[in-house]
């Protein structure tokens, strides 16, 4: 029998104690792994969010938001300069206009209601058929929002309604199209009895409906989306742009691109970004990452302390036996190695239980941490409700997307995690038995004689 076999056998000398130690170690290693899994999953999510949310810069004509405020539109030429900036991956441009009974045969599907009446009254402008002659009337009808755009499916860049674009029927026109074609919101199409292939009139021109979409909200479903170039030409606003969204390669470059765009456009534009909002989005995740890291460190330390105390107890108990082994010719190294093997045996068995626990509990613990965090950090109105109104289109994606981004975290345990588990077990065993080994080295074989 060699020293390794003796060490392994010694681990089972006291079966009740061995069982208890293995279970406690298993819990410690299981918690370590669950925290490691949570840490990695949340870290990946943060990277994903940083790569997809908040890496945009919004540009509007100075003093203008949608149909509010005042000022002069931007031009294609101005935005061409922005497109050449380093780290800019693409620029979505749009020109918003309103279709009323004076320039279109479309009728809005939205009932004005008291809010619409008040907005119209406050703005001092009336639209619709019943109110001609100036001033607001009780028969006020909201206009239909028309967006000319280079990115027809990006509703965050095509108007104030936002939402998620879902094509119900037909097809989507290309970003560079100059055809007299349109995508209609489902409510608007229904209100005007229009289908794919039907036509309507705008600016005295027949426009063909090529697709019907659903945005998931009433405002956007009352919208018309057309190619930017077509709207610029038909509305007599050649080269004009009322809003643009600049996509940046990484969230870390958003601030520098914002500054560069401000420099290029000067006082002609308001340039804003949603980096701060994105940072708010990932902040709870970063908290979870920190908590999981500290818990991971704590659990590893707890495991090391458990095995350390166990080995010290075992060494104290077997002091005489150590003395005998040394008296009959065992070296310090040999005795230490035997006890280290015993510690490794206990921790590897603990690791097997721990890995099973980690695999089973990794995902639920991650979800629990995320849910607790999201329920305490996403008070109503925190995101999207007005905090980042100036951020333009980007803000609209945060309100609903935040909770989704958290709840979509999925933690999985791969081979690397299992290998980490075993590596942690070995480290715990070596660290835990290091001090015990020091006590072993201090045991003098002469003590066997004195204890007789």
């Amino acid at each position, binding site marked *: *029998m*060699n020293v390794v076999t*003796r060490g392994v*056998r*010694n681990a089972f*000398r006291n079966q009740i104690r061995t069982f208890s130690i293995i279970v406690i170690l298993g819990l410690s290693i299981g918690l370590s792994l669950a925290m490691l899994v949570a840490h990695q999953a949340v870290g990946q999510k943060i990277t994903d969010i940083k790569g997809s949310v908040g890496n945009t810069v919004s540009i509007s004509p100075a003093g203008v938001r949608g149909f509010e405020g005042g000022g002069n539109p931007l031009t294609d030429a101005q935005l061409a300069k922005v497109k050449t900036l380093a780290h800019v991956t693409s620029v979505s441009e749009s020109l918003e206009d309103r279709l009323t009974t004076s320039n279109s045969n479309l009728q809005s599907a939205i009932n004005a209601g008291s809010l619409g009446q008040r907005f119209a009254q406050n703005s001092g402008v009336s639209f619709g058929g019943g109110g001609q002659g100036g001033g607001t009337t009780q028969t006020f009808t909201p206009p239909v929002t028309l967006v000319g755009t280079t990115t027809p499916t990006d509703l965050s860049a095509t108007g104030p309604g936002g939402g998620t674009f879902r094509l119900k029927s037909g097809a989507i026109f290309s970003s560079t199209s100059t055809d007299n074609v349109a995508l209609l919101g489902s409510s608007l199409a229904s209100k005007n009895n229009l289908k794919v292939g039907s036509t309507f009139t705008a600016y005295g021109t027949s426009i063909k409906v090529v697709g019907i979409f659903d945005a998931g909200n009433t405002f956007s479903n009352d919208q018309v989306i057309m190619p930017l170039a077509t709207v610029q030409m038909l509305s007599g606003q050649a080269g004009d742009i009322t809003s643009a969204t600049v996509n940046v390669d990484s969230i870390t470059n958003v601030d520098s691109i914002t500054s560069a765009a401000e420099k290029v456009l000067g006082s002609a534009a308001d340039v804003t970004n949603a980096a701060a909002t994105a940072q708010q989005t990932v902040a709870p995740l970063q908290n979870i990452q920190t908590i999981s890291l500290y818990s991971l460190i704590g659990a590893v330390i707890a495991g090391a302390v458990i095995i350390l105390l166990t080995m010290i107890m075992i060494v104290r108990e077997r002091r*005489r*036996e150590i003395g*005998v*082994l*040394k*008296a*009959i*010719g*065992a*070296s310090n190294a*040999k005795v230490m190695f035997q006890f280290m093997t015993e510690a490794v045996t206990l921790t590897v068995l603990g690791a097997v239980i721990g890995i099973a626990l980690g695999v089973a509990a990794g995902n639920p613990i991650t979800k629990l941490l995320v849910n607790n965090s999201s329920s305490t950090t996403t008070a109503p109105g925190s995101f999207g409700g007005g905090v980042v109104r100036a951020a333009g289109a980007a803000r609209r994606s945060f309100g609903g997307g935040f909770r989704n981004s958290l709840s979509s975290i999925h933690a999985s345990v791969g081979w690397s995690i299992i290998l980490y588990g075993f590596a942690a077990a070995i480290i715990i065993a070596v660290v835990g038995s290091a001090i015990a080994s020091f006590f072993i080295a201090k045991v*003098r*074989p*002469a003590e*066997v*004689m*004195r204890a*007789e």
Partner: protein
Amino acid sequence: MLKVQGLKKIFQAGDLKVAAVNGVSFTVPEGQFASIVGRSGSGKSTLLSLLGALDKPTEGSIEIDGNDISRMRDHELIKYRCQKIGFVFQGYNLVPNLTALENVLLPMEFAKVPKKQRLERAKQLLDQVGLSDDKQQRKPGRLSGGEQQRVAIARALANKPKLILADEPTGNLDSQTGKMIFDLLHGLAKSENTTIVTVTHDLEIAGKTDKTFRLKDGEFKDK
């Protein structure tokens, strides 16, 4: 041959110095059986520790087979203890979770004796001390005191040592078993040509040895 000259071991506790062994000199020729008798606290066990290279003397020399072990370094002592010295303790001191056979194999494993050879030697020794095959596979807890001491004697002889040191080997046994163990130790030592030094309270046993040393307050009173 065992040759001890001017051996001293002084323990210090604060300002207090205690000479557990104080200038002891003696010689035991090869193959002889010597006993050391004395009251508790007379320094018997300390002397045995020094002879067994378990502790280092404050002064003096111990020559075993011509080698002065008092000048050896720690790693040399480990090797020397393993190959040249065997121990028999009053409380047997067998490793509790190893079988009798495995206990006898242990010192040979430390001495790097080939596996097959050590298994043969261990079985031969256990047969010689009268432990049946069945009992050879038992752990110490399932053996009587006398049987455990037989295993301890077999373990002490495993590496064919030049010197066996026995600390009250019959102290925990009844008189009849004690006598049997003494005779066994004596007989095996003769057959293996090993020098034995035993510490004992039992004057009857001491009277049967080739030499007897009386220790009092760390010094030999007569020989």
